[in-house]
């Protein structure tokens, strides 16, 4: 039995609510949710013993942003990716700082580099770039005359 | 008038001695530190890098003398001298030879203990007038530290005064007997530790704590004024070592002429080297631990020493 199937069967026992959301993407266990249900799902996961929020990041998919949270559990010795989407024009969602404090700085980083607003975040300021920076560099359409494009060697 | 001229001569000599002590002391400290740290130390300027400090001094004298805009200018510029003068004055009562000190005053032991402590005013003013947070913290720390360590230092010397029946440095040195060494060993330890703390040297270099306060009370000083602060550190080291060697170890008392002087200098240099060794070995203490050491450990130790000495005198 692979780690994924193990996790699937255990989740089926432990949380019938999360089970239908559960899927496999590229070999990883993924729980995909609507952004309105994010906090609910996160709390459910937390109650299941997923106590470590390892990573928060976003992917710019042109029309929308995919938010990726990686949570791990020591007791289940498992990790799942919690994924949600926010539309580009309306890029905001609930902050998970209340569920996992570790989200604090990581959400600030996503805000800084992608411009996604986390509602309810205690201290949502730019973290890596200067406070007066214009634009969100990791967006695919970010333009900056400071950038010198690398010539194509390949 | 005679006394005034003599005072002028002694003052100049003390200044010169401190300058020479700093020139050699910095070089020696860098060499000893290098030895401890498996390095070589200064090598390129002069033989074995002996002229290194000379080069540093010329450079520092010719550096730009910055007074920060927001600093309290007159005090800022004057504070280094306020630190320097008490340090130089202390050298006036060191018993350099049997029965002789540049100024043989009746209460010279008290003078030696009290006057260098006045440099705390200079440190406080230097820290405050810089209008720099780091410097202010350094200055306040320096004041607290120097005042606290005054007490154990004085108490430890007091037991010598008791033994000699004199509060003059010359009197103590002339009355010195070899069996004082084991009897006042604890007192010497207290004196030595308290002296290091008075000089703001490691492990008690809190006022200038490099890793926290960058440079502490002299953070905003540059060029010659900063060099004066450095000179004071080495001058104070020399004074404390000479004094310790003369009073606690007799400073070669009873040995014929030149040999006695050589032994005296060797003893003092050894003490100074131990100070350097201590600095480059130990971590720095925290302010509260530093105060705890002064009030909870060193002061009781010095008091016990005093009691023991008193009992011995009564028994004799």
């Amino acid at each position, binding site marked *: 039995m692979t780690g994924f199937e193990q996790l699937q069967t255990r989740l089926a026992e432990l949380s019938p609510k999360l089970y239908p959301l559960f899927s496999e*993407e*590229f*070999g*990883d266990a993924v729980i995909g949710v609507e952004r309105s249900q994010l906090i609910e799902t996160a709390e459910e996961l937390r109650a299941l013993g997923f*106590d*470590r*929020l*390892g*990573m928060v*990041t976003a*992917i*710019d998919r042109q029309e929308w942003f995919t938010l*990726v949270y*990686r949570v791990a559990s*020591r007791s289940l*010795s498992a990790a799942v*990716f919690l994924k949600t989407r926010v539309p580009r024009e309306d890029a905001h969602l609930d902050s998970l700082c209340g569920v*996992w*404090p*570790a989200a*604090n*700085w*990581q959400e600030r*980083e996503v805000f800084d*580099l992608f411009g996604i607003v986390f509602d309810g975040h205690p201290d949502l300021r*730019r*973290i*890596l*770039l*200067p*406070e*007066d920076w214009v634009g969100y*560099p*990791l967006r695919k359409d970010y333009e900056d005359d400071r950038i010198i*494009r*690398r010539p194509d060697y*390949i | 008038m005679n006394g005034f001229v003599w005072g002028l001569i002694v003052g100049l000599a003390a200044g010169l001695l401190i300058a020479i002590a700093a020139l050699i002391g910095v070089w020696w400290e860098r060499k000893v*530190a290098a030895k401890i*740290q*498996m390095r070589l130390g200064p090598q390129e300027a002069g033989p074995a890098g002996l002229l290194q400090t000379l080069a540093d001094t010329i450079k520092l004298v010719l550096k730009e003398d910055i007074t920060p805009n927001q600093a309290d200018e007159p005090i800022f510029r004057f504070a280094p001298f306020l630190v320097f003068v008490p340090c130089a004055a202390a050298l006036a009562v060191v018993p350099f030879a049997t029965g002789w000190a540049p100024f043989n005053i009746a209460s010279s032991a008290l003078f030696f203990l009290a006057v260098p402590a006045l440099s705390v005013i200079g440190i406080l003013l230097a820290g405050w007038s810089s209008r720099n*947070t780091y410097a202010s*913290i350094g200055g306040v720390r320096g004041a607290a530290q120097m005042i606290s360590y005054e007490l154990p230092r004085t108490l430890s010397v007091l037991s010598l005064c008791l033994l000699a029946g004199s509060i003059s440095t010359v009197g103590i040195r002339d009355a010195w007997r070899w069996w004082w060494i084991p009897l006042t060993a604890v007192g010497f330890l207290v004196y030595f530790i308290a002296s290091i703390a008075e000089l703001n040297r*490691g492990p008690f*270099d*809190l006022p200038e*704590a*490099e*890793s*926290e306060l*960058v440079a502490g009370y002299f953070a905003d000083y540059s060029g010659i004024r900063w060099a004066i602060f450095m000179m004071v550190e080495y001058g104070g080291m020399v004074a404390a070592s000479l004094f310790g060697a003369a009073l606690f170890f007799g400073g070669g008392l009873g040995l014929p002429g030149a040999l006695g002087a050589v032994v005296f200098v060797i003893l003092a240099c050894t003490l100074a080297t131990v100070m350097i060794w201590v600095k*480059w*070995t*130990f*971590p*720095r*203490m*925290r*302010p*509260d*631990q530093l105060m705890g050491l002064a009030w909870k450990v060193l002061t009781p130790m010095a008091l016990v020493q005093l009691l023991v000495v008193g009992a011995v005198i009564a028994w004799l």
Partner: protein
Amino acid sequence: MTLQIESRTPALDDAGHPVEELVLNVGPSHPSTHGVGRMIVHLDGDVVVKVTPVIGYLHRGIEKMAENRTYLQIVPLTDRLDYVGSMYANWAYCRAVERLAGIRVPERAEYLRVIVCELQRIASHMMSIGSSAADTGAFSMFIYTFDVREGVVELFENLCGSRLTYNYVRPGGVSKDVPEGWTDDVLAFTGSLGPRLDELDRLFFGNTITRGRLKGVGVLSPEDAVAWGASGPAVRGSGVNWDLRQHRAYSVYPRMEFDVVVGERGDAYDRARVRLLECYESAKIIEQCIAQMRAGAIMTEGLPRLLAPPVGEAYDHIESARGSLGVYLVSDGSERPYRMKVRSPAFCNLALLPLLAVGHTLPDLVVILGSLDPVFGEVDR
């Protein structure tokens, strides 16, 4: 961009009077910030009321740069992430690429990766302990630990020609096989490591002043450590047994016998000492690796020069000297990644600083920051 300090409503003391706070700006160039970190410290007397870390002074945008480079060209970029432990970022990145492209790595390459990473762990921990010592004022100790680190650096130099940025672990294997006699040099190094570490242990951790300075400072409870996403020695110092080398048992670690070092109280002393004790375990792992390693290929055969993994997403993480270092790669099928994200342990550990420092004095703040061992190349990326 200015260096102004934000204003803040004053705190109140027990009687309700406003406390006059001293606001101290530490950094971005300060001897104890280990690089370019900056902290805005609010002091009440000598006691820290509030710390606001300000980071990003070394934010170079490596994640953005990676989007315009081929998979192989990114490896040198990862070197510059954690410059005290370049091998880890190399390896974490390569594992993610290998997962994305489905590359199997030859066994000898895995052994070599484990050897260099454990050597790197010794080097990195020595740097960390040394800088912690320098923070407390024991500067000579820094030089002694750095001397041990120099030994590792020399070994790396013989292996891949560089002292700091190795570019050694590549997708599919490692760049070069070991030169002749290298394993003997490594064994000689690990053989002499034990007594040297014992000496450092006695000199630093046995010192009364050090104990007074480090013990009970910056106590991190196990619950907080887990909730705040701490990893590496920061979480193990608090007594949480969390080490990816054992829990995920990646690469050839399942074949190794070693102990996970955990602390008890979670203070700065435990965190620093966990690092020292881990060096002994690393030496053990290296010796086992060299004993088990057989001759063979060091690079996967038939790898195209221009990798173009299929569309997908892959995350992989390894236990670096600072904690779990993960790389998240998104491929759109082209020869360049669509998105690369580095999950940096130092970033997550540093987030604990405001939590740990409050209530301690200014000298303790420096010690706490040192015990979290931030490397700003990795914090800021």
